[in-house]
C-alpha cells in the first residue's frame, strides 16, 4: 500500500512538474537565422501541442504555421547556468487566443516581423532574448511557441525569470491557503459531526428503527 501511494505521488508530481515546465515562460538568448512559413497537417498525436487558429480566423484541419529558426545559447538548470556552446532551435509563432495557455497573445504577425527585423547577418551579429513556452520534440514535430523577442545586451545576458518567481510565490501561498482551509473544515465541521455520531448514536436512530425497536421490546 505504501509503495502504491509512493508511486502515485511521484506520478502526480511528474505530471504537475511537466505541465508547469510546458506552460511557464522561459527565456533563450539566441540569434535569429531565418523565418519561414510551412503548411502543417495536425494529427491526433501532436494536435494538443499546437494552439488554435489565429484570432478572428476559421479553424481548419490544415493551416500555415509561422516558424522562427534560431541558434541559441545552451544552458544548464533551466537557464540559470550558462554554457559556451550553441545549438539550433525552431520556434513556432502562433496566437494563443483567449484560452490556453493563458498568454492571451494576439500579435503573432507583428512578432514575426520583429523576428525578421532581428535576422543576424555575417559581420553584424544580433543577439535577442526570446521568451517562449512549450517543448521541441523531433519525433512528433512540435515546437515551443515564441511569445516575445527583444534585443539582448549580448550573448552572455542572464535573464532573471521574474514572472516565474512571482508565480511560484503565489502558488506556495495558494497551497498554504488550501491547507489552512482544509484544516479549518476538518476541525470545525468533520470532527464535531463524527463526535456527535459516535457519542449520540442511540438518540439519532431513525423513526423506522425506533418503531422496529418498540416491537422488539414486547
Amino acid at each position: 500500500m505504501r509503495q502504491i501511494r509512493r508511486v502515485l505521488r511521484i506520478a502526480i508530481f511528474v505530471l504537475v512538474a511537466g505541465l508547469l515546465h510546458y506552460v511557464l515562460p522561459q527565456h533563450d538568448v539566441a540569434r535569429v537565422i531565418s523565418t519561414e512559413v510551412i503548411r502543417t497537417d495536425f494529427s491526433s498525436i501532436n494536435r494538443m501541442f499546437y494552439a488554435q487558429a489565429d484570432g478572428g480566423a476559421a479553424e481548419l484541419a490544415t493551416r500555415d504555421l509561422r516558424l522562427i529558426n534560431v541558434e541559441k545559447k545552451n544552458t544548464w538548470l533551466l537557464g540559470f547556468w550558462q554554457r559556451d556552446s550553441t545549438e539550433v532551435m525552431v520556434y513556432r509563432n502562433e496566437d494563443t487566443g483567449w484560452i490556453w495557455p493563458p498568454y492571451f497573445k494576439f500579435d503573432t504577425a507583428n512578432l514575426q516581423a520583429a523576428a525578421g527585423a532581428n535576422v543576424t547577418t555575417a559581420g553584424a551579429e544580433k543577439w535577442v532574448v526570446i521568451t517562449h513556452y512549450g517543448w521541441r520534440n523531433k519525433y512528433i514535430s512540435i515546437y515551443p511557441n515564441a511569445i516575445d523577442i527583444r534585443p539582448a545586451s549580448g550573448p552572455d545576458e542572464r535573464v532573471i525569470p521574474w514572472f516565474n518567481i512571482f508565480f511560484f510565490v503565489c502558488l506556495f501561498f495558494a497551497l498554504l491557503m488550501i491547507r489552512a482551509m482544509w484544516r479549518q473544515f476538518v476541525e470545525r465541521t468533520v470532527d464535531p459531526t463524527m463526535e456527535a455520531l459516535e457519542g449520540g448514536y442511540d438518540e439519532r436512530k431513525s423513526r423506522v428503527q425506533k418503531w422496529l425497536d418498540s416491537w422488539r421490546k414486547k
Partner: protein
Amino acid sequence: MSFVRLMLLWAVGCSVIYFAVSIFARSLRREALEKRWRADNAGADVSGREAYVEEGMTHYEAGPWPWVLRICIYLVPLFFIAIVHIFTTYY
C-alpha cells in the same frame, strides 16, 4: 467565441473559489467570536454564547469583509488577464 468561453470559465471558477473562501472566512470569524466570548465570560454557562456569536456573525455579514473578498476574488483574475494580455500583445 473563445472570449465568451474565457468569461464563462472566469465566472464559474471565481464563484467556486469565492464559495470555498467565504465558508472559510465565516468559519474563522465564528471561531474567533466563540473564543472571545469564552475569554470575556470565563466559567460561565454556554447558553449565552449562541446569541453572542449570531450577533457577531450578523455584524460580519453587514461589514466590509464579504465585499473585500468578493472584489479580490473576482477582480484579481481579470486584472491578471489584462496585464498579461497587454504585455504579450503590445510590448
